[in-house]
């Protein structure tokens, strides 16, 4: 009890600090006093700095917070629903659907001889394509969940849909030009920097709605720890619960993938980190803990990805895995109890 309070008290300032550092660092060096001034709403003497911070760095930091939180929560939902430590936001094939949508936009249009489309529509077209792709997969999964009583079957169907989309993307790549393949690959690297203005509001709305839905479900989620039979015997409606879990995962994972590309790792790793740090299986604590830790790790990874002081920016997906995987392995070796959190 006491330990978890101390953790909250430490993690919230840590997130604030990391966000500040994230805004402050970048390829252009801006003095810290100016950075804080601009964040507080005052204008700097250098109008260039104003633009950099307000138009680029702040939105990117906020995107990192939203994407990290949302992915961590959807990972938690999937791990609990399927009682599987390897489940993540994308096991239902949602990101594969988004990838297929984007691949179709970038590559199929070119194959059909309408290359102008992608350029003319810009990033908005990519978002729409990703939404359409993940929305389609979501529809298939929801329909399946209506007819199939068993969550494991649903998991396998999700994985199959993922493979199917992946195969279609491969076929598209085979017939595409190097240029198109490259722009598709760059999208798959993930990016936190492409969300501005109204898009940021959309992303925020999606993440808030998805998190709110999962917060409403803490009790059925806890009862699912005992398995579906016990959950039913405690008066939980499995159909409603599963439907809500799928909808909020699709909102979170689909929405974030649409805006930022398929961001790997965070969704699977953060819920484990939350369980180990807070030493709990109770979703009333795990949901907020995943939210907070997801934001912290994502902002941290983004700060590293900028390689402060250089004009280089590394792909965020590479960093989340490069930084995150060893960290999680280290924690696991020290705790040796990841498997304990789950039934086989």
């Amino acid at each position: 009890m006491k330990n978890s309070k101390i953790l909250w008290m430490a993690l919230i300032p840590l997130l604030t600090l990391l966000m500040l550092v994230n805004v402050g660092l970048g390829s252009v060096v801006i003095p810290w006093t100016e950075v804080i001034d601009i964040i507080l709403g005052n204008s700097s003497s250098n109008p260039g700095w104003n633009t950099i911070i307000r138009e680029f760095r702040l939105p990117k930091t906020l995107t990192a917070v939203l994407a990290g939180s949302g992915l961590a929560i959807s990972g938690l939902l999937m791990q609990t629903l399927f009682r599987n430590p390897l489940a993540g936001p994308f096991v239902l094939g949602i990101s594969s659907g988004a990838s297929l949508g984007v691949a179709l936009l970038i590559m199929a249009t070119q194959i059909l001889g309408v290359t102008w489309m992608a350029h003319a529509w810009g990033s908005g077209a990519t978002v729409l394509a990703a939404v359409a792709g993940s929305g389609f997969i979501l529809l298939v999964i929801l329909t399946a969940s209506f007819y199939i009583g068993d969550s494991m079957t649903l998991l396998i169907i999700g994985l199959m849909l993922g493979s199917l989309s992946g195969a279609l993307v491969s076929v598209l790549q085979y017939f595409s030009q190097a240029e198109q393949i490259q722009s598709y690959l760059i999208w798959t690297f993930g990016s936190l920097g492409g969300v501005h203005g109204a898009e940021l509001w959309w992303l925020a709305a999606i993440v808030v709605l998805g998190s709110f839905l999962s917060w409403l479900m803490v009790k059925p989620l806890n009862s699912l720890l005992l398995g579906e039979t016990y959950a039913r015997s405690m008066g939980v409606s499995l159909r409603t619960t599963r439907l809500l879990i799928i909808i909020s995962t699709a909102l979170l994972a689909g929405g974030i993938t649409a805006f930022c590309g398929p961001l790997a790792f965070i969704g699977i790793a953060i819920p484990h980190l939350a369980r180990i740090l807070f030493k709990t299986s109770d979703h009333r604590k795990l949901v907020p803990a995943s939210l907070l830790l997801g934001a912290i790790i994502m902002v941290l990874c983004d700060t590293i990805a900028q390689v402060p002081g250089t004009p280089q920016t590394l792909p965020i997906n590479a960093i989340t895995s490069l930084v995150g995987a060893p960290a999680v392995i280290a924690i696991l070796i020290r705790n040796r109890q990841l498997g304990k959190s789950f039934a086989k």
Partner: protein
Amino acid sequence: MTAAKLITDNLTIGYDHALLSGLGLTANSGEFVCLMGPNGSGKSTLLRTLATLLPPLQGSILVDSQSLFQLSAREKAQLISLVLTEHLDLGYLRVNELVAMGRYPHTGWRGQLQNADREAVEQALNATGLQDLAMRPVQELSDGQRQKALIARALAQDGSVMLLDEPLIHLDVGNKWEVMNLLRITTRNFNKVLLMATHEIDLCLQFADKLWLITRDGSVAVGCPEDLVLTGQINDTFDQGDYKFHHHQESQENGSGPQIQISGSGRALEWTRRGLIRAGYQPVQKPGLAKVMVTEEQHIIHWTLELGENSLACSSVEKVIVALGRYIDK
């Protein structure tokens, strides 16, 4: 007499085709009932049907005079709780958190416990002797303790009926005995119906108030364990190939409680003695509160019960125990 707690009315169960049909079973509060039968006879199907995890093919189930199929999931959960066999890995979940989950059908959307809920959790922990382990992760408990924690969770759910599907299966002999004893005591103290599917015939003979025995012809024989042994129905059900159920071990127990004089000979006497011990009496050779005489003529067993001035002829151990119970209560 109050109405039975658990009633099945013309119940037909099965998945696609009927496995058991026309079941009219009843169980009263304070009765510990063991559901037995060979593999594949429909024990689990019956239990799952009673838990409304599986729809019946026909008929209805009543708990506390309410038809289960007219209730919401939450209302059903307030009447029936479940203990299963499947091995759960529960991570950091603590014993008190697990038991508190039993209160879910009674709490609000976040599962926040009120005073009544906390009391129920504490009562369940005390009843199962887990109060000292309340803050420990379930994961760290032994199999026996863990089974008790799951029973405590079902107790905290506080329904009239508790259904248990082979809860003894992973336990060693000592723990099996202890859990059975716990279940019998809990049934009495909490005045519930406990229905447990199991293969542990020796323990059932020792602890169960009644057996529901699914026989080879697909009917359910109901009676107290001793009667089902004496009528040969246990043998008919479980003897297979070279295996013959043969309970030759004489009970070492002398029993405790009101002394009842008992006379007679042979198998019938031994099983009557065991029945009295199980029901909480002490069978003795000298005069006691009442007297039971067992006679066997041409394979037909008669019991004569002398209660003070009155004499009563009974046709089963169950009837002897019921009559004794009424007499002693007065």
